[in-house]
Structure formats: structure tokens, C-alpha cells
């Protein structure tokens, strides 16, 4: 798969993700907390519990409505090309809840080609997703950048 041109990149800016909904299932909240070395929520306590804040990112990317491979393909890349995280920002308007369901919307916000002395040509793509709770209130926003190495550009 060849690298897109800079003009190709700009055609993707503004494209919206299909979006979807994400539920912080208790089993997933437990496993994620355990995996990230945090205290897992109790599966036996019926009281409302706060989910690990990493769930903002989990929900955003889990319900953006396309797979990572599909997102990479928007930029003429595959997982084998070695795309990596650049920067990330999570803003939590309210704590996320174990068992809560969130509607996810978002899309591509920016794309730019850069040249590093050591790294060569690479593209930096910015994308963002908003989470709303079941009542429609804003719950969180995740902004991210992803870096695509362009060894053949």
C-alpha cells in the first residue's frame, strides 16, 4: 500500500467516524483495572461504582465504529507499518460509571506531513471523540494524535 500524498491526507480531515455506543460492562471494568494495576471494582457490590478513568479512551476507541485496521487504511497504512501514539488528552466532565452506557461521536480533526532528521517522513493525524451518557449529558472527550511512519514517501 503506497503512502498518500499530502493532498490525499487533507481529504480525510473532517471525516466522521460511524460512532456507536459503549457499555462499561462490570467484567470489563474488573479486567481493565486489574490489567492497569488499579483496584478492580467489586462485582458483588450493588452500589454505583466509578470506572477507571482509562475507560474514557477505551469507550472512545471501542465505539468509534471502525477497527484500528480500518482507521489505518484511511491513511494508506496498516498495523505492520508501525503507527504509534503521539499525544493524548482525556477530559472528564464527570466520572464514568461501571455499568454505564456512553454514546461516542467523533472524527478526524487534523493531518500534517512532517520530516524528522532522524525519523524521516511521517504523518501526524489528530482525531477526537466525545462521550455522552444515556441522558445526553457530556461525559468525556478524548483527543489523540497518531504518527504514521512513511518510509516510502
Amino acid at each position, binding site marked *: 500500500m503506497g503512502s498518500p500524498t499530502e493532498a490525499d491526507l487533507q481529504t480525510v480531515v473532517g471525516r466522521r467516524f460511524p460512532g456507536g455506543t459503549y457499555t462499561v460492562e462490570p467484567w470489563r471494568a474488573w479486567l481493565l483495572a486489574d490489567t492497569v494495576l488499579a483496584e478492580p471494582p467489586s462485582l458483588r457490590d450493588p452500589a454505583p461504582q*466509578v470506572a477507571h478513568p482509562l475507560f474514557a479512551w477505551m469507550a472512545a476507541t471501542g465505539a468509534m465504529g471502525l477497527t484500528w485496521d480500518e482507521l489505518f487504511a484511511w491513511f494508506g497504512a496498516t498495523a505492520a507499518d508501525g503507527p504509534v*501514539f503521539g499525544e493524548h488528552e*482525556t477530559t*472528564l466532565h464527570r466520572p464514568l460509571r461501571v455499568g454505564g452506557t456512553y454514546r461516542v461521536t467523533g472524527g478526524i480533526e487534523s493531518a500534517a506531513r512532517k520530516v524528522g532528521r532522524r525519523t524521516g517522513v511521517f504523518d501526524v493525524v489528530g482525531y477526537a471523540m466525545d462521550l455522552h451518557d444515556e441522558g445526553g449529558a457530556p461525559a468525556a472527550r478524548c483527543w489523540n494524535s497518531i504518527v504514521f511512519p512513511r518510509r516510502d514517501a
Partner: protein
Amino acid sequence: MSTPTVEVGTELPAYDVPSVSAEKMKTMAALLSDPTPIHWDVETLRALGMGDRPVNQGPLNMGYVMNAVTAWAGGPQSLRRLRVRFLGTVLAGQHLRVRGTVSGLREEDGARLADCDVVLEVVDGDAVVSGSATVVLS
């Protein structure tokens, strides 16, 4: 936490991950539906000339930073914002440490907020994540 002692320049307690677990990376890959094999397949790592130690997922590194600031501030409900830049890779078996320093204190909608500079570093190595966090002080 006794918030009256918090001031600009206050250092957060160091948060250590004594040894990054390759097994946790496998669970994370499944939770994320992440197809990237450098997080779990040693054969791929060797073929890419990356040795035989799986590379930790960026969100896990970010999660350690979240743990550090929320443990200090009073719980997972305290995080308002986290912005991070990924500077390098973390490999299985490495010893990590999160350090943080309060850079600002302010009030917003009746809540007392602390802005903190944060860094995740490999102990005796380089910084791998740096950024800033905002937490609500309880």
C-alpha cells in the same frame, strides 16, 4: 489526603510499577481488540529486530499515570484531565516510576483543582511519557 498542605511545588508520592508484565499486555490486547503483534508475539518482535521483550501498550502507560495522580488526589473520580505525550517504549520486565509535581492550584465551579506536571520514566532510564494532569482535591 489532607489538602491544606498542598501548594505549588508539592511533590506527589512516587508511584512504582516494579516489573511490567507481558501477561497483562496480552489481556490488554484482547480488551482493546488491538491487532498489533509487538505487544504479545515474540516471533514478530524477533523478525522485526526488536528483541524478545513485548512492548507495553501506550494506554497502559497512560493508566499508570492516572493511577498515580488519582491515588494522591483521593480516588478515580478525582481526575478531570490528563494530557500526555508518548516519548518512548516500555518493555516487559522494566521498572517504571511515575513522578508528579503540583504546578498550579485554582477554584472552578466550587471545586479546588490541582494542576500537576507528570512524568513516567524507566527507573535508571529515560522518560517515556510526560504531560500534565488536573485533579479535584477532596
